[in-house]
């Protein structure tokens, strides 16, 4: 759970939240949709873009789709994106102690 290896591009952001009805972890994707995998998230390289998208995500929260969307830092490399911080990495996969549970196990909450 250390920082990602050198060489990963940094300064990238995605928006995440939990679904209101199920609590499932979701990410803000194309067309202002909510995806169940971080791979489908829209990646923002510029802060202004990210903030604008966050406003739209908050509108989705106000409409009762998701709860408390927020921006997280991600890194991209080897054709994949993953959260920078351990907390968000675990959210994107599932508990590190139960590989049979969560997104890593193909479960949709």
């Amino acid at each position, binding site marked *: 759970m*250390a*920082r990602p290896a050198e060489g990963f591009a940094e300064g990238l952001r995605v928006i995440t939240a939990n679904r209101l009805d199920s*609590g499932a972890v979701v990410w803000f994707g194309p067309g202002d949709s909510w995806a169940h995998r971080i791979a489908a998230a829209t990646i923002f390289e510029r802060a202004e873009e990210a903030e604008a998208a966050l406003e739209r995500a908050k509108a989705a929260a106000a*409409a009762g789709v998701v*709860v408390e969307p927020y921006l997280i830092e991600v890194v991209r490399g080897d054709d994949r994106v993953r959260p920078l911080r*351990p*907390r968000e990495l675990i959210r994107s996969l599932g508990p590190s102690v*139960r590989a049979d*549970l969560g997104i890593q196990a193909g479960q949709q909450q």
Partner: protein
Amino acid sequence: MTHLQAGPYHQAGQYHYDEIDRRFLAERVEQFRRQVERRISGELTEAEFRPLRLMNGLYLQLHAYMLRVAVPYGVLSSAQLRQLAAIGRKYDRGYGHFTTRQNLQFNWIKLVDVPAILDDLAKVDMHAIQTSGNCIRNVTTDQFAGAAEDEVVDPRVYAEIMRQWSTLHPEFTFLPRKFKIAITGSPHDRAALAIHDVAVRARRLADGAVGFDIYVGGGLGRSPFLAKLLREGLPEADLLAYLEAVLRIYNQYGRRDNIYKARIKILVHEVGIDKLRQQIDAEFERIRGPKYRLESAIVDAIRAHFAPPPFEVLPDEVPSVVVAMTGDAAFARWVQTNVVRHRQPGYASVTISLKPAGGIPGDATSEQMEAVADLAERFSFGELRVSHEQNLVLAHVRRDALHALWTELGKHGLETANAGLIGDIIACPGLDYCALANARSIPLAQQISERFADPERQHLIGELKIKMSGCINACGHHHVGHIGVLGVDKHGVETYQITIGGSADEKAALGAVVGPAVGYDEVTDKIERLVAAYLDWRLEGERFIDTVARLGVKAFRERVYGPAA
């Protein structure tokens, strides 16, 4: 909930709901069902809904909603445990997590299912009320209450009285911060009194009547304090009046401007125990009177719920146990650590360890819960306990049935012989589940318990309590671990601070940092070196905590980190 009457779950050693209790719970479930509907429809915002869901024990954690179910003072009937198992299977992922607050948490709950879950809980007289929020939380106690050989007063009676007093108490629903009360009735403290906002030590006064020593201001978190003696020898009749006075003063003067300074421990620290005592005593004298008087008839009526189960008259020494221990080293080890003496001759209390080597502390599958429920019925009058050390307890087992019980436990992976040993680790859910955590705790606990998995080695080391938290909130009680481990996030990297010398019993102490914080991969090695130093240095009969007290932290620091640390 003061109307006493037997209900359908009228089993030994448990308070029984009456129709008024049940009607209240049914209404509460319906109320929350409507609140959920209004939230889903958009009528309620999250800001409006959040306090309502928290009042029903529902958190939003990393992966899903988490529902914390109240287990009053850790006592469960077999029927209740069976229902928890069923809920785990139907609405969660087939397991539950027993906590240091003697409660149970489900980690994979959907909001839309919660009304149905609360409905199922209410069917067995259970709920999730006051398991969150700034109110008086579940009153906790000694897991061997009503059975312990050293017990002077049965704390369950007063825990139940405090539960009834604090449940939906209109004045104490929005306190400055959460409020935790623990009680014991034994000189040996198994309930970690010193780390609670208020701690009650029940004892016999000089005239033989029940009385209480009241302690206040204990708590862990970023500012750890041990509770200080507030009142000695409080008469039984004054218990609720005095607690009412404590809570009123806290409610009035506790800080609401800073969440980190809102617990009563900070008030005690800032105002001083003597001045606070004056204020509490003045309020106590003002309100003392018939309204708050705890009448002996009420105490007797509650005590009747906790009457001893129908014990048989048995000899205390059971030759068959000795024979079995002689012939089976594994059984002998289990008896040595997981079986304690009972006040009733011929009986014993059994700790069912939820800490198998490499396992997740406090987790039990639905199948295991059902198995324990069955065993509670076969071996312990249908009643069991949750300990704050995240294990289960069958409190009243015939000594001549111990081998049969151990054999049955073994069929379900519940026979681990490590109660109180290095593998019996308290660990909070940490970053694997908890939205507040900064670092993982569970996998470290797994790593340590695997490193010390050899039962002979564990028994050789003897009593050693490791407690581990994944953030400064200290749900894993790391400050009072013989060895404490605190996980922090240091620039995006999980880092761990190790303390030694803490204790949660009647000689409570806060641990001291033993050396610089270390990375995730170094923690288990450091602990192994601490243990090796102890084994080298211990005198005859000394526990780890005794050797630390004798030699001091510095000696261990130099041994583990080198003289320059």
